[in-house]
């Protein structure tokens, strides 16, 4: 330790056992000092993480099972089981139910965001990403981008089935598409809650359980399945303030071609408020996670 030996020819190392040269040549070449690439911007980082989410869908297609099967089951079950009882006939009920089922299907899928995040933490992948010089929110934003693919698949299946069963959209293609976009924007805002849960809970299954407990009153105690005017007053009170009800009203309106500016605004305000409040909290949890 008395003199600084200049690299790359440190003869002091020769006292230690050297690795056999046949094996180390490619290794030596691969790990020797090299020029660093220019660091990419935040968008490129987030898109790379989005690409990862798509790769995971490709390798684990089972995760699409819920996305494809649950909208089919929900739509068929509610339309034929309760349609006659709730609305008098199946066609009338389908017209009322389908936008709501679409909303419920996509919102249930948002819990996977937290589940996936927590899996990354428990598997140690998360800390690898945090040790890289990337834009801090990019792993989360990228995951959310990847999730929109799942939402879009579920939306397509639900709508396709709906049209097959006789759903008619007065708002036309534009109305249906803008309804779906509004739903995706809201889902993006809502999924920050589940991401935050994914960061604080101990296991992926705990995240799943807690998220469902949050989601149940949001989706079932809303105007998705039935007109709130038949509900008791206290429940009407909740349904009235439930942001999911406002979202469903707006999506229904858009698909029917009767949406008002106020209806759509409420849904957007709810999404913006969720993002403004929960996203900073989530990022704080992310940075300070031990």
């Amino acid at each position, binding site marked *: *330790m*008395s*003199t*600084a*030996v200049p*690299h*790359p020819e*440190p003869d002091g*190392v020769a006292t*230690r*056992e*050297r*690795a*056999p040269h046949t*094996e*180390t040549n*490619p*290794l*030596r*070449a*691969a*790990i*020797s*000092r*090299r020029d*660093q*690439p*220019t*660091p*990419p911007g935040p968008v*490129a*980082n987030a898109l*790379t993480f989005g*690409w*990862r989410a798509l*790769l*995971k869908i490709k*390798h*684990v297609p089972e995760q699409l099972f819920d996305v494809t099967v649950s909208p089919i089951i929900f739509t068929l079950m509610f339309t034929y089981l309760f349609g006659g009882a709730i609305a008098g006939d199946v066609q009338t009920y389908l017209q009322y139910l389908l936008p709501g089922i679409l909303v419920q299907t996509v919102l249930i899928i948002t819990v996977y965001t937290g589940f996936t995040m927590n899996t*990354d933490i428990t*598997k*140690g*992948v998360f*800390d*690898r*990403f*945090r*040790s*890289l*010089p*990337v834009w801090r929110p990019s792993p989360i934003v990228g995951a959310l981008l990847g999730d929109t693919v799942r939402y879009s698949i579920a939306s397509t299946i639900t709508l396709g089935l709906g049209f097959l069963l006789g759903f008619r959209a007065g708002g036309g293609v534009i109305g249906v598409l803008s309804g779906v976009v509004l739903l995706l924007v809201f889902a993006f805002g809502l999924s920050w809650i589940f991401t935050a849960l994914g960061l604080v809970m101990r296991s992926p299954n705990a995240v799943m359980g807690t998220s469902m407990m949050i989601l149940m009153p949001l989706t079932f105690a809303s105007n998705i399945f039935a007109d709130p005017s038949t509900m008791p007053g206290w429940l009407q009170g909740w349904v009235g303030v439930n942001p999911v009800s406002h979202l469903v009203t707006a999506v229904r309106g858009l698909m029917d071609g009767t949406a008002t500016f106020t209806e759509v605004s409420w849904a957007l305000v709810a999404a913006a408020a969720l993002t403004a409040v929960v996203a900073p909290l989530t990022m704080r949890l992310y940075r*300070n996670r*031990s």
Partner: protein
Amino acid sequence: MANMSTELAVEAHGLVKHFGSTKAVDGVDLAIPAGSVFGVLGPNGAGKTTAVRMLATLLRPDAGSATVLGHDVVRDADKVRGLIGLTGQFASVDEDLTGSENLVLIARLYGYSRPAARARAAELLHAFDLDEAADRQVKTFSGGMHRRLDLAASMVTSPRVLFLDEPTTGLDPRSRNQVWDIVRVLVDDGATVLLTTQYLEEADQLADRIAVVDHGRIIAEGTASELKASVGSGSVHLRLVDPAQRPLAQEVMGRELGVDVQTTSDTSALSARIDGARSAASLLPALLDAGVEVSELSLGQPSLDEVFLALTGRPVDDESDEEQVA
């Protein structure tokens, strides 16, 4: 202090980290010269992982400061992240993706173009003997392959400082040797490596200097031979067929060797420090004469157990899994 020209790759002063009421790291000072291998040796729960996580910017210290190649790990965290590589139980790869996809992902995050990232991934897979695993999902890998991919993933940009947290824990001897070879090549190339381990042998094989940690503190620091000198130049290990004979064997050993004989948590084992093989020459006949059934008798280096016992006066206890709290 005589040598001002030695550049420090990692420097830490009074690092502290609490988890609730537990002091995981309790005032750690480090000064690791560039181009050297520094071993952090200690049992589970000693605070090794927590210390590495602070140096790698994953965890904010509660007190104290640390720099990596002159950059503060809290204030210049992003700069530090651009200079380090990290492999360990807590920094792994995505098991759903293939070996190649994992490396392309990381290369893309560093800013490699798509073709450059693919070329870099192929180069690393070849270098780490993972050619045939390029298109297989990581979940199908063996333990050794998984660890080599972990290492490759932390070397995409050939970082000058590498943190390896227990890189060989749970590996079979062949895989362990492969990992050791990789570390040797790295250091040969001028990188600085901070390695944590539970095995004295590993620290001895790889590290220029070793810090022994216990309860979040460094309790000894020096070269491997300095540490071993603190426990005697060698030791004799005895394993019995019948644990019930241990008191008898302990008495015979003490009489023949003239030193204290230590017991460990292993109820059929005994060990003692000796100054040379000669003093052990009469041990086996004496044990056999006394009717002790010997299953194994060996001379060798002191183990981590013995270093620990000499330094702390108590054996390594494996009871705490505190690091899992993180």
